[in-house]
């Protein structure tokens, strides 16, 4: 009776066309955690009614991949999401259809075909602005002092629940540091991707803690996701 058994979803023959979207997350959407954000994106895709490709198997679901998580509280205009369609549509049409369904604070910047592999992501760059509890110039001087330290050791919990000391100093590249009125503005490059990931708040928390500085709202913007050679990931 084998001929009577037809799989519920015969996705096997269905063609798959890969797409990569660059999106922005900011404003009210800043407070969505990565996990929640992935679910929100899934719903945006579903609402867009694009012919989206589902994973095969017993419990098919929309295929979406996020190569790099964006920490809660950080804005970005360079985030990446990969997905696939069952039909070839123009990139502009896909961008438009997705864009229409995005809530405030989420924007689809562009859609293209993937060039690089996720594993090629090595760095990310950030703009950081904050108003310290001490005068901006004094804070900047302290920052420069901080950056000329031999070592910056932070505590890191291991899986065995012991605490390791890790030196993060070698991983921090400061692109610029200056004052802007009452604010301090920093630009830095930090490791990102599968192998090693360093978040801005780890660096800043270490700084604030060491000098006992407090701050009012801190604005962090991811400006670039980069390869080993410094080029943008596309």
């Amino acid at each position: 009776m084998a001929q009577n058994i037809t799989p519920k979803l015969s996705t096997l023959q269905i063609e798959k066309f890969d797409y990569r979207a660059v999106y922005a997350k900011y404003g009210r959407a800043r407070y969505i955690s990565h996990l929640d954000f992935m679910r929100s994106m899934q719903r945006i895709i579903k609402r867009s009614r694009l012919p989206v490709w589902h994973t095969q198997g017993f419990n098919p679901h929309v295929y979406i991949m996020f190569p790099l998580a964006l920490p809660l509280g950080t804005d970005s205009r360079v985030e990446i999401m990969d997905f696939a369609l069952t039909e070839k549509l123009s990139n502009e049409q896909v961008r438009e259809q997705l864009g229409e369904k995005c809530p405030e604070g989420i924007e689809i910047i562009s859609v293209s075909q993937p060039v690089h592999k996720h594993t090629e992501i090595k760095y990310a760059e950030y703009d950081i602005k904050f108003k310290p509890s001490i005068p901006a110039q004094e804070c900047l001087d302290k920052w420069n002092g901080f950056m000329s330290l031999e070592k910056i050791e932070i505590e890191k919990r291991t899986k065995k629940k012991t605490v390791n000391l890790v030196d993060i100093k070698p991983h921090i590249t400061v692109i610029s540091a200056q004052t802007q009125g009452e604010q301090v503005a920093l630009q830095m490059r930090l490791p990102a991707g599968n192998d090693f990931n360093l978040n801005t708040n780890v660096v800043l928390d270490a700084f604030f803690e060491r000098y006992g500085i407090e701050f009012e709202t801190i604005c962090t913007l991811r400006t670039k996701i980069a390869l080993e050679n410094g080029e943008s990931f596309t």
Partner: protein
Amino acid sequence: MQSMKERIERLLLKVQKPARYIGGEVGSVVKDKSKVDVRFAFCFPDTYDVGMSHLGMKILYGLKNQRENWWCERCFMPEVDFAALLRENDIPLYALESLDPLSEFDFVGFTLQYELSYNNVLEMLDLAGIPVLAKQRGDDMPIVVGGGPCVCNPEPMTDFFDLFIIGEGEEVNIELLELYENMKRQGCTKLEFLKQAVKISGVYVPQFYDVTYNDDGTVSTITPNIEQAPAKVTKRVIADFDNVYYPDAFVVPFTQIVHDRAVVEVLRGCIRGCRFCQAGFIYRPFREKNIDTIKNETKCLCEQTGYEEVSLSSLSTSDHTRINDLLSSLVDYTDGEKINLALPSLRVDTFSDELLEKIASVRKSGLTFAPEAGTQRLRDVINKNLTEEEILRTCRTAFEGGYATVKLYFMLGLPDETLDDVAGIAQLAQKVVDLYFEVPKEKRGKGLQVSISTATFVPKPFTPFEFEPQDTPEQILEKQAHLLRNVTSKKIKVSTHMQKNSILEAVLARGDRRLGKVIYTAWKKGCYLDGWDEHFKFDKWMQAFDECGIDTKFYANRRRSYDEVAPWSHLDYLVSHEFFVRENKKAHAAQTTRNCKQGCSGCGIKKEYGGVYCGAKHNAQAVDSAN
């Protein structure tokens, strides 16, 4: 001056799941407030995760926002971490769409879904800088209104509310807001408005009623003190249910909530008169939507939300008169769109093999039954028409279909319950275990688990058990211990529920106006979020009862006579007192009552309320378990 938004944002990165406090979700309605005449803050007195799952809010939110010049917004109880930060930084509790403080609204409306959320109402008002006591709120403060199932006895909460909406809200909310819009234009006072509002059917203004008490502490009289107020307030019912407003958009949260899915209401009311179940009586009569209506609403919401799951909401979905056609037609759509169809309240006795197969493809999670009582005799007492044979038959089909997890829900402390009935719970679970091992190994799933979950019975108003005493904590403990003694198989897991909050629930459910000061006192002592075990402070509550000189036993553990004036007797939920008395007597005689589909039992609801089965010829006297 920083804007509210900036002030709020400064706190967000310091709290858990901040996306709950800043709005901006898909489907949330933002209007230009300079063009709005009436502003309504719909408050759910529990956290965002719980409140956002609530269907009534979605309906009334959409309904009011249909009017261009009305704006309905949402507000929830903040978690402890955020509430503390709000207080520390002098930020008043605000609504999520405009981020404006609640005190700037015309109406602040709360839905009272369960007794243990009462104190959150006080806490939310206070966080918003609104005086909690109605008599302390001047004309500059919003009108505080309440609705939801608990307002069938709102008496313990009358100190805190200006007005209650009794029954279903779709029509009366519109009438109330229209009246307000007109009177606001004329510059009327709050009192003048309330005096007009009581003329709307379903509107209850507690300050217009005086309550007197007998020497033994029971209520003597409840009488209106102004001529406009009716002696009895009758609940509102949507007679034309198929055409009632239903939202075409939901607010889709960013964070995960309890029920994170599209929901379509398929029917309202219930045909089964389970005697312990308040919902089964206060939502009568049974009305349903046409398949096409349901299908359109499903499609519309799935498209707008992008949810991957849709659930059918009702007290008992399988009682839809065309359940099989309905499911086939829905499954066609949902399968095509790869959407999961969830059927949370499917009854086992109409659970055909065919139906099981249909939903098996979308739901592999496990099987749940609510026999509620361990023996047939006690199930007859509570009129739960579910037989052991039916349970076992369905379990067999399920085991043969590869299921291996069965959850059984029971209540302890039901009227006329004996220790034999309690032992019956263990025996029933054992039979399910034995049955599993009878099913051939190749067919059944691996790793059988039968779980028994027991809750303590809480007698509720507007049920045949409203006269019954609740078991004392000692009695419940004895029954719990007896149950555990009778469970011998390792495959059976028993979980019993905290008894303490059901005492409080029982007191508040059937309480009178004198409990207002206990609630106030307990809240002052820091009692709120009582529905959360980690925040429930039973000792503080008991102190509050002591200080107010109020005995919980008077409310919870006393048998009430049929002719006692109930604190809620000025509210009419259409089911007659005589019917409840008759049902109570039949319960004690362990006689069942047929369901509305088998034949009307004359509960008192008139045909014009749109019930599918109401108004058929019946003879109440001839109605008995033989049917």
